[in-house]
């Protein structure tokens, strides 16, 4: 595959961007004087800034590359990861859960678990979360470096070190504020960098109607009904009627409920951005403000994949064919960049691509250093030290976190589609988690033992289920069936992941209820005030104009999402 050639103007754009990224860290370093400044931005971030950071921190490797790949592989059904798999959960966390997260003054999600339940539940969550952030950050780094090597011919090691160094410097200097500000910058850069690509691609295929006509051919050639690539709901009746290989129930329950709520409502990576907001109403608006761009992202990240696959039939193809004979879907977006953008905009597009990887990396690193310092170091290793000490530890944890990510980056990924792999990890660890939070926040009888053992049982259920099933065409190994017997074969990896999540959640939900009923509630009602729905005073919003009220905003966002679903049903 020939490398994309960059001109002087492209390097100039890249350098301008890096200069601003580092400059923001440099300017902000003066304002970091306490650990709360470093880990929580002093709780002083306006809602719209935190909201854009909220969505940008999630915009890592899995988003731009993975969603482009899924757009090519599955068509517009991929938008379920947004309209079904993100928006409802984002509205829910803003309206119903943020009062407890922000109101309890917990400094992290694991710390909320400590306040609500007990030490062991916090420890389990903090530990698994810390491992997961390092893993995700490493994946971002690995994906970025191997992509740059493939399309530009840059040295893999140089890319890893350079991206690690830049993220390290700006977080080290300015802490969470620096990460948040850069995420806002990255958000606009990603929009501005990819939009011309989508516009040019659409123009090339003859607009939306031209794209639909070409994708109809793609669908019939793949053995599906003509509209399979351009309808999100129509072919969900049975798993064999759509390229994703899922049916509506596992999609709605697995993705729309368990995985989506498990991620958006409990993952400290995103919740941390909302916790940094300047006030309770602002914190509640953060996820809902974030939902607006999230709702429109399919146009930016899925559409390029759909355009690539439409052109694949016409021109013989932009996508190189991989070793297994199928197109390398992960190259959908990078190939589009090289195909349509001349020197100049090409630099902007590549900068946007790098920005998306770095924002994903930085989000994980800031979440890691907070959880490490507050929930692991301060709780188990050295409690009661001065604030200065924990601030220094935060700096050290940033360095160590980045070094560990680099180590993870060198671990290879086995899946064709990065998204599938992340889903698998989320399914084991995150899927049961939402049951714990739901019961913890809305049922005061939930006990610490119930939460802890429920989580363990849920995670174990996920691992056992995955070990006894396989997706169609796969051999036993990392993709499942590792417990010896294969009891069921799913039509696709995605379907298997969704069912793993559903089973993990149900196991955790039931186990938590049963064990809670069998054990004594050690927390008094006073201790649970502000942490549980029934024991927290209702928020009065008379002084907030209606359009700034989370519930009103949430309803509007949900209505708009419903309209999008109907248009592309």
């Amino acid at each position, binding site marked *: 595959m020939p490398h994309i050639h960059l001109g002087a*103007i492209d390097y*100039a*754009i890249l350098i*301008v*961007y890096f200069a*601003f990224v580092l*400059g*923001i860290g440099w*300017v*902000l370093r*003066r*304002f970091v004087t306490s650990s709360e400044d470093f880990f929580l*931005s*002093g709780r*002083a*971030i*306006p809602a719209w*800034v935190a909201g854009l950071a909220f969505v940008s921190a999630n915009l890592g490797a899995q988003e731009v590359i993975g969603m482009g790949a899924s757009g090519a592989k599955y068509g517009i059904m991929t938008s379920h990861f947004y309209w079904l798999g993100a928006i409802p959960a984002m509205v829910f966390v803003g309206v119903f859960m943020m009062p407890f997260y922000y109101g309890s003054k917990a400094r992290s999600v694991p710390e909320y678990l400590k306040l609500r339940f007990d030490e062991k539940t916090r420890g389990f969550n903090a530990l698994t979360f810390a491992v997961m952030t390092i893993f995700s950050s490493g994946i971002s780094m690995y994906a970025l470096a191997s992509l740059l090597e493939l399309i530009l011919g840059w040295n893999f090691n140089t890319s890893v070190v350079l991206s690690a160094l830049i993220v390290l410097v700006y977080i080290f200097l300015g802490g969470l*504020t620096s990460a948040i*500000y850069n995420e*806002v*910058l990255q958000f*606009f850069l990603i929009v*501005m960098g990819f939009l*011309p690509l989508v516009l*040019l691609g659409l*123009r*090339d295929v003859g607009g939306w109607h031209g794209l639909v006509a070409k994708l109809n051919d793609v669908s019939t050639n793949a053995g599906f009904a003509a509209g399979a690539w351009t309808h999100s709901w129509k072919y969900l009746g049975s798993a064999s009627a759509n390229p994703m290989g899922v049916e509506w129930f596992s999609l709605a329950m697995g993705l729309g409920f368990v995985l989506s709520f498990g991620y958006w409502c409990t993952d400290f990576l995103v919740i941390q951005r909302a916790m940094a907001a300047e006030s309770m109403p602002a914190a509640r608006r953060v996820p809902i403000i974030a939902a607006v761009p999230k709702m429109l992202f399919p146009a930016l990240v899925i559409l390029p994949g759909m355009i690539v696959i439409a052109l694949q039939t016409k021109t013989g193809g932009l996508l190189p064919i991989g070793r297994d004979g199928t197109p390398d879907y992960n190259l959908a977006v990078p190939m589009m960049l090289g*195909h*349509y*953008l*001349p*020197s*100049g*905009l090409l630099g*902007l597009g590549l900068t946007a691509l790098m920005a998306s990887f770095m924002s994903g990396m930085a989000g994980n690193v800031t979440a890691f250093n907070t959880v490490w310092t507050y929930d692991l170091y301060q709780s188990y290793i050295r409690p009661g030290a001065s604030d200065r000490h924990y601030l220094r530890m935060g700096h050290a944890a940033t360095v160590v976190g980045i070094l560990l990510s680099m180590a993870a980056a060198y671990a290879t990924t086995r899946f064709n589609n990065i998204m599938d792999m992340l889903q698998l990890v989320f399914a084991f660890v995150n899927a049961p988690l939402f049951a714990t939070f739901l019961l913890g926040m809305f049922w005061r009888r939930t006990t610490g033992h119930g939460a802890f053992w429920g989580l363990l049982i849920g995670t174990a259920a996920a691992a056992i289920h995955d070990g006894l099933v396989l997706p169609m065409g796969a051999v036993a190994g990392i993709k499942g069936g590792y417990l010896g017997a294969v009891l069921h074969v799913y039509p696709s990896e995605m379907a298997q992941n969704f069912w793993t999540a559903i089973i993990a959640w149900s196991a955790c939900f039931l186990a938590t209820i049963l064990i809670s009923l069998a054990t004594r509630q050690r927390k008094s009602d006073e201790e649970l005030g502000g942490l549980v729905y029934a024991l927290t005073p209702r928020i009065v919003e008379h002084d907030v104009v209606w359009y700034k009220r989370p519930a009103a905003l949430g309803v509007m966002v949900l209505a708009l999402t419903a309209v999008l679903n109907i248009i592309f049903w």
Partner: protein
Amino acid sequence: MNLDVRLPMGLMFTLLGALLSGYGLVSPSSIYERSLGIDVNLWWGLVLLAFGLVMLTLALRARRKRKTP
């Protein structure tokens, strides 16, 4: 917060917009074959420039408001 994020954002996009549209004016038209014959650097550069200037204006206005309460 002590630094308005719109300030660096406005500066960066103004600079990127100026760079791109400037390059669009001087670059040979042959490089635009791949972008369907459109001088995308010029046009998109102007979009970035406009966005950057709006952000800068908002940041400066907010700063003036804070100085004269």
